C-alpha cells in the first residue's frame, strides 16, 4: 500500500474536481490531481506530466532532471569502479613483478 507507480497524464476529465486520466503501462484509469496543481502549474498544463500515482491520486510530479541526475551518479560510480579495478590489477601486476 505504500508503493506508488509512475504514470503519464493523458487527459483532463473534470477541471473543477481535478479529475484526470492517467496511463500506467497501457492501463488507464481516472485519478485525482489536486496535489500536483497550483498557481505555477495549472490544470491545463498537466497533460503529459509524469506523476507518481498512489491510491488513485497523483501525489508528485516526477522530476525528470533529478531522475537523470541519480542515473548519472550511478553511471559515474560504475566508471569509478572500473577505474579502481584497473588500478588494482595493475598495482597487483607490478607487485608480482617485484
Amino acid at each position, binding site marked *: *500500500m*505504500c*508503493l*506508488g*507507480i*509512475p504514470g*503519464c497524464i493523458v487527459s483532463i476529465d473534470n477541471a473543477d*474536481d481535478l479529475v484526470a486520466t492517467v496511463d500506467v*503501462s497501457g492501463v488507464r484509469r481516472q*485519478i*485525482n490531481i*489536486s*496535489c*500536483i*496543481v*497550483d498557481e505555477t502549474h495549472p490544470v491545463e498544463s498537466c497533460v503529459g506530466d*509524469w506523476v*507518481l500515482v*498512489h*491510491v*488513485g*491520486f497523483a*501525489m*508528485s510530479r*516526477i*522530476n*525528470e532532471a*533529478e*531522475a537523470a*541526475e*541519480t*542515473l548519472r*551518479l*550511478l*553511471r559515474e*560510480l*560504475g566508471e569509478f*569502479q572500473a577505474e*579502481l579495478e584497473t588500478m588494482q590489477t595493475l598495482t597487483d601486476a607490478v607487485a608480482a613483478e617485484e
Partner: protein
Amino acid sequence: MRYVDEFRDRTKAEVLVKEIERLLAHIGRDQSRPLQIMEVCGGHTHSIFRYGVEGMLPKSIELVHGPGCPVCVLPMGRVDDCVAIAERPEVIFTTFGDAMRVPGSRKSLLQAKADGCDVRMVYSPMDALALARKYPTREVVFFGIGFETTMPSTALTVLQAEREGIRNFSIFCNHITIVPTIKAILDSPDLRLDGFLGPGHVSMVIGDAPYEFIARYYKKPMVIAGFEPLDILQSIWMLLRQIDQGRCEIENQYARVAPAGGNAVALQAVAKVYELREFFEWRGLGSIDHSGVKVRDAYAGFDAERKFAVPNAKIADPKSCQCGEVLKGVIKPWQCKVFGRACSPETPLGALMVSSEGACAAYYQYGGIKRGRDDEASAA
C-alpha cells in the same frame, strides 16, 4: 516502464554492492559486529525481499525491518471495531485489499464478508465515495489506514464529499504518523541502530525537515530512499559514506519524487481534516503519544467513529506472538516461535504475516526462512 526499469539494472547493482563492500572495509565492520540499518517503511521491506537485496549485501550489514507497515501495526481492537461497523446492515464497508485478512479477536474483515457483511475492496478512497453516490440509502464507510502517504488521499476525499454534500460517507480513521514512531524507536533501550533508510513516499508529502531531530539530537544519519532495488542500494551506500566521513545528516536519494519541501496541497488537506490524537495504540509497540490522527470536529459528520459509536475495546495480542520484538528488530521473524508453524500467510496469527509489506510474510514468501536458519546453523 519509464522511471522503473532503469532503476533495476543488474550491472549497476553490482557496482553499488562493490562500493558498499569497499566502504564497509574502510569503516572497519565485519560479520561479528554488523552495521544495523533500519528501513522504517514497509514498502522498503517489500522491495528488499522481492528483489533479494539482503542477499546481495555483505554479511557485515544487517537490515532491521521497522514498523512502517500500517496494516501490521494495527491493533486487534481496531480490527474488531471495523467488523462491528461492517456488521451493521446499512453499511457498505470499503477497504484497501491489504487490510482484509488482518486477524481481529473474533474475525477478520474477510471472514466478516464470508459471513454476509457487505465488505468491498477498493483501490482508492475516491472509489468508496463513488459507491456512496451510487447507493444513497446505504452508509459507505472507508477504512482510512496508512501513514502520511495515504492521509492526504482520505482527507481530500472527505473534502470532496463535503463539496458535493454527500452525507452517507464516512472514514474510519486509523491513520498514523511516522515521526513520533521513529522517536519511540530511538528512545527504546534495547536498540542499537547505525542509521535509517527514510520512507520515500511519506517524505514526498512531509518533506525533509521533520526528520532533522534524528541527525541533530540522536546523531543518526538518514537517507530518504526510493523503492527500486538500485534506489535502496544507492541509499545504503550514501548512508555508509556518511558513517565513513563521520557525518550525520538527512540526505535525499529520492529527489525525483520527494521534493525537500514536501507537498503543500497535501499537507493543507491533512491539516484541515485531521488533528493529532493524544496517543494511538500500536500492535506490538504499545501506545505511542501523538502517533495517530483523528477527524476534526468540523468534519464530525464524516467520522465513522462518531457516527457508529464503535466499541473501541483494547485487546491484547495472542501470547505466542512476538510481533513487537520483530518490529523493533530485537529478533528476526524466523526466530518467532510460531513462525511458519501456527503462523503462516494462510493462517496468520500476527499482522506481520498478513501484508506483503510485513517482515514475516516477506521472509516466508521469499525464502528468507531458509536463509535465516542456514545463517543460524553456520553461526553455531
